[in-house]
């Protein structure tokens, strides 16, 4: 066997290995999805979406859970969006390359990897105890905002970085101030990317149960929250609760609730893909 034949063989081997690795993830996901859909899809009907939790699996619904999840989603977005974008703009456009900004950057990157339960403990101490909010929607949303903030900041920076230097130079050349450049050129050009990042971060937040349980989110809430000051539960907590029950019928409920949660996540991801697509089509430099 010549050397080049050997190399070609190695090349082929790696290709096969790569395909195998790619499929492992997909196949596992597919098996999970098929299993969940088979188990749960028949359970989803209008009553399931509009009923309160119940001890009888067949009568139990997820109204308060999905309403709580939507609330959390919207509130976290409102909180994390301006904070994350402002921080991203500052770090990318204003901050000088000093030791301090370097330190900040490293920390933000590290924060993105902190386990969510730690944010739960932080939220419990800071929002629930010190600010004395109690286990309400606002406290939950603030906690999850902290959780997704690093992701929002990082994606904002990436999106801003993608705006070519020449656009900024052109703006400055016309006499625009830094703020004018950011507001009229950089932000509009990068907004699709930023929004994509925020939405992907939010779709991580909707799946969290642990930090919310820590701050005192409940399992049985017989009313739909009407303001950010109300107590709440969310879909992942309801799912977690149902999967730990002895009766098999609750597992079916859990599967049905998982389908709903997945739909919410897919919907969010779909919006993100759409926005990115639109962005790419519109911008021509």
């Amino acid at each position, binding site marked *: 066997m010549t050397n080049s034949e050997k190399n070609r063989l190695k090349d082929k081997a790696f290709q096969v290995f790569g395909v195998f690795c790619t499929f492992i993830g997909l196949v596992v996901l597919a098996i999970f999805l098929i299993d969940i859909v088979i188990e749960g899809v028949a359970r989803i009907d209008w009553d399931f979406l509009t009923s*309160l*939790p*119940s*001890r009888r699996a067949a009568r139990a619904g997820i*109204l308060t859970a999905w*309403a709580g999840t*939507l*609330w959390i989603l*919207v509130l976290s*977005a*409102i909180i994390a969006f301006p904070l994350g974008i402002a921080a991203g703009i500052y770090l990318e456009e204003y901050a000088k390359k000093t030791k301090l900004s370097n330190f900040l950057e490293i920390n933000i990157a590290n924060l993105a990897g902190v386990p969510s339960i730690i944010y739960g403990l932080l939220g419990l101490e800071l929002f629930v105890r010190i600010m004395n909010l*109690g*286990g309400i929607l606002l406290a939950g949303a603030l906690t999850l905002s902290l959780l997704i903030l690093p992701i929002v900041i990082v994606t904002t920076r990436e999106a801003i970085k993608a705006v070519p230097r020449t656009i900024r130079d052109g703006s400055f050349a016309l006499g625009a101030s830094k703020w004018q450049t950011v507001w*009229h050129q950089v*932000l*509009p*050009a990068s*907004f*699709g990317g930023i*929004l994509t990042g925020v939405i992907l971060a939010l779709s991580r937040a909707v799946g969290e149960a642990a930090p919310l*349980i*820590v701050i*005192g*989110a*409940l*399992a*049985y*809430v*017989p*009313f*739909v*929250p*009407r*303001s950010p000051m109300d*107590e709440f539960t969310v879909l992942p*907590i309801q799912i977690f*609760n149902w*999967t*730990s*029950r*002895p*009766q*098999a019928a609750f597992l079916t409920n859990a599967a049905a609730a998982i389908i709903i949660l997945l739909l919410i996540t897919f919907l969010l991801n779909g919006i993100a893909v759409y926005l990115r697509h639109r962005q790419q089509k*519109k911008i021509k430099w």
Partner: protein
Amino acid sequence: MLKSRLSYFRLSAVIMLGASLAMTSCGGERQEGGSDMSGSIQIDGSSTVYPITEAVAEEYRAEAPDVKVTVGVSGTGGGMKKFTRGEIDIVNASRSMNAEEEKTATENGLSFLQLSVAYDGLTVVVHPENDWVQDITVAELKKIWEPEAQGTIKRWNQIRPEWPDQEIHLYGAGVESGTYDYFTEAIVGKSHSSRGDYTASEDDNVLVQGVSTDPLALGFFGYAYYEENKSKLKAIPVNDEDDSNGAGAILPSLETVKDGSYAPLSRPLFLYISSKAVAKPEVVDFVNFYLDNAPELSEEVGYIRMPDNIYNEQRQKFEQFAKGAATATNQQ
């Protein structure tokens, strides 16, 4: 270009506003009920007791639709922390309050009452193909689970010589659960002390899964989980070597747990109510409703009812406590 970008901002603002309005507007329906009681009751604590409290809260809604009862599942320990700080009215507990928690409650000026609401029978199980274990004594269980067993008791024949010379695989409650505290107290003799080299899970369904697929397994969990998975498991009669409460080895069942002959693994499940909470009439009403309905509802969700006279005792205890708390407040 600017305009189209800004419309993103506006669009998302409109969506958020719309969503929050939609959420505020739904859920306004009200039911007609038999009581004009109103207010709110906060309950938190053990996930083991949760199904009973959920069932009672669900039924109570028909009784008093204006009382907002909420139930959390932050565990007995987590619930106790909130309870002793006076943050919640009632705590679901799968073990008794410990000395430290009692101290915190007293420091915060709270007195409290423990009520038993149902029994659970911790069931010792093996794989259905296990044909050698017909019964087990408490002493043998202790030998298996005590801290000294770690790394030394690894084979079935070390426990009883006639059992096979094969590995034993252990499955049990996670150390954070009240189930673990109760089991170690009853078997090892000291709460929160056992060997650590076993498969532990807070989720009993995981333990069911483990034991039902492992022919060399031995595990324990709540009775309801055995009852629901009977075909995949084999329960082992437990002999406490004390014939005064039923002779020989006894299998857990509705009867043996209820009459106390399934000892020492029958455990009571508790509610704790604080003196601060009984000042609220809706809490008194709710607890009375709870005790009236606990026998039936606890059975419905998979636990075991206590004898009627014990429920009566609980009712009397609670009545006195509520009265005492009321006079204490009047004197202040």
